[in-house]
């Protein structure tokens, strides 16, 4: 039977009489856990921000008609040449339309899928921005502005003006900010655009678009889907792209494959399109954990050292305790609980300090041209960090306490009492 109250009482007395050493050991843990929480919050915040920069505007599945050569050429259908080696020169892309055939019904069909959060039609086209005699090439994308704001955070990238204005104003344009700089335009001005097949359309600028990627901002503009259809002289079922947002990004790949087979369209999922982001995130996480684990191991050695010293100092006490009826296990538990108390107090303090430090960093201004939506350093504090941090604190102090306490368990009281 283990009598916890007395074991904890002895552990507490030992710790309190050596308060300096105890505090230093606990501070080691506090420092380790505090920096872990801060680091991981900061890193996760940074990861989220970088991912958002690209991934938030990127559809989970992007469906379009790809212009490409037919995979099988007619000659392969000819049975008599089946076993022969054929070479076809100058293969041209298959003549097909840019628009998605039956685009609107496909969107309706997709929206019925339970995994799909939203499926948005887009009309993409190349245009020229006309400034006097200068023509700047660019892309104009017809969108449903409010839906784009809801599903793809378009609102974050609009500087000056709003998505509502784009929705409500006929013949309006959300102009890439670099184009506006080049042409010295401001909100409320008009800009003339010309589609490839000719004609000039004046559009009213209702806002600027700034993605943070300046090359993109120098070509990309948005307009209402109907406006673009009108510029192109197409009917209102003319859709070139469908962007799908899912509830769970993990399903993107399988669903993309299904769509590709079912509708004979090109469907690219986000993971295939942005594989490099995962790699970056993984490596940053790896660094965070490597640094934190190192800090905690250092803290663990501190605890190990201090407990070892304590046990040497308390040889007499250990011998007395054993002589008056404490078993080796009791003595081990006394020293183990000291380690765990240090770990617990240090860990909890570390969590608080980590939280405080993260919250502090989150208030420091961090403004950059590239990221219009970011105003302070990115911090992402999640409860799971605290659980992991605390578990690690307890685990490392347990290991650091285990070895010295096992030594205390094995001390032979007779040797000490006889003064040998």
């Amino acid at each position, binding site marked *: 039977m283990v*009598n916890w109250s007395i074991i904890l009482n002895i552990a507490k007395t030992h710790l309190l009489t050596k308060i300096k050493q105890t505090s230093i050991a606990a501070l080691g843990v506090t420092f380790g856990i505090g920096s872990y929480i801060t680091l991981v919050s900061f890193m996760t915040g940074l990861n989220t921000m970088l991912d958002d920069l690209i991934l938030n505007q990127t559809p989970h599945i992007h469906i379009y008609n790809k212009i490409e050569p037919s995979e099988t050429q007619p000659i392969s259908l000819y049975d008599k040449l089946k076993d022969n080696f054929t070479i076809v020169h100058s293969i041209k892309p298959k003549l097909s339309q840019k628009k998605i055939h039956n685009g609107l019904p496909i969107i309706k069909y997709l929206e019925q899928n339970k995994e799909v959060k939203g499926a948005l039609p887009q009309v993409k086209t190349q245009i020229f921005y006309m400034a006097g005699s200068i023509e700047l090439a660019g892309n104009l994308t017809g969108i449903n502005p409010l839906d784009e704001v809801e599903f793809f955070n378009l609102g974050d990238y609009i500087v000056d003006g709003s998505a509502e204005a784009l929705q409500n104003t006929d013949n309006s344009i959300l102009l890439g900010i670099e184009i506006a700089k080049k042409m010295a335009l401001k909100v409320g001005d008009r800009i003339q655009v010309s589609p490839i097949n000719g004609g000039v359309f004046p559009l009213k600028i209702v806002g600027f678009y700034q993605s943070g990627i300046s090359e993109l901002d120098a070509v990309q503009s948005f307009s209402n889907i109907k406006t673009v259809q009108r510029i192109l002289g197409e009917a209102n079922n003319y859709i070139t792209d469908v962007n799908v947002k899912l509830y769970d990004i993990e399903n993107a790949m399988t669903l993309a494959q299904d769509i590709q087979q079912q509708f004979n369209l090109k469907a690219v999922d986000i993971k295939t399109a942005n594989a490099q982001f995962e790699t970056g995130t993984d490596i940053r996480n790896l660094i965070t954990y490597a640094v934190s684990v190192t800090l905690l191991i250092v803290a663990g050695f501190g605890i190990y050292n201090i407990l070892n010293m304590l046990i040497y100092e308390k040889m007499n006490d250990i011998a007395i*305790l054993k002589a008056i009826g404490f078993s080796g296990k009791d003595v081990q538990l006394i020293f183990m609980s000291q380690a765990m108390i240090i770990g617990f107090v240090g860990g909890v303090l570390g969590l608080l300090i980590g939280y405080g430090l993260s919250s502090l960093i989150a208030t420091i201004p961090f403004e950059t041209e590239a990221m219009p939506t970011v105003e302070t350093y990115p911090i992402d504090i999640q409860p799971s960090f605290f659980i992991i941090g605390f578990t690690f604190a307890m685990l490392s102090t347990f290991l650091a306490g285990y070895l010295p306490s096992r030594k205390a368990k094995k001390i032979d*009281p*007779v040797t000490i*009492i006889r003064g040998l």
Partner: protein
Amino acid sequence: MNTVLEAKHINKYFKNPVLFHVLKDINFEVKKGEFASIMGKSGCGKSTLLYILSTMDTDYDGELYLDNNLITGSDNKHLSYMRNKHIGFVFQFHYLLTEFTILENVMLPAKKLGEKSNQEIEHDAMEKLKMLNIEHLAPKRASRVSGGEKQRVAIARALINNPSIIMGDEPTGNLDSHNAENVFNIFKQLSEEENLSLLIVTHDEDFAKKTDRIIQMEDGKIIV
């Protein structure tokens, strides 16, 4: 008279640095209420014997009975329990836990035993301290009392669980004659009034002569 402690054919060897036969076929018993002392020259094995009898040293041949129960070969946990409940110790150096108060030191074995509530234990501890005329020391830190007082505290601690036997390893060896006298009187009183068995290892011939029985040892053997 009941036998409290009995040793049968106890042999012990030291294996380092060379094989050395320390205790050679020790047979004796301590009866209830008996005040026995073990005497002998340094190195005759009397302390070694005491630590075997105390169950702290388990590396020996032979059989040891406490209250007629064989305790040789029990596991460490059981031995700890036996020490806690049935054996009280007094050492030459008055080993107290210096960071605890006198009262806490005395209460410690009883708390470990866990048979009584804290209040009962505290009451018992105060009783023992009163019996030894040191109740005024109760709230003091163990590091703040004199040597003679410490030894009396150690006796109080040894008594707290009302053990079957008290063992002492030169309990007066580190005390001046006045305090040694004092400690002896306490032992004598415990033996006579409480009918407690005592087994004391000592160098002090005067001390030994006043006990009920002297066990004389020489070269690992009991000669008287």
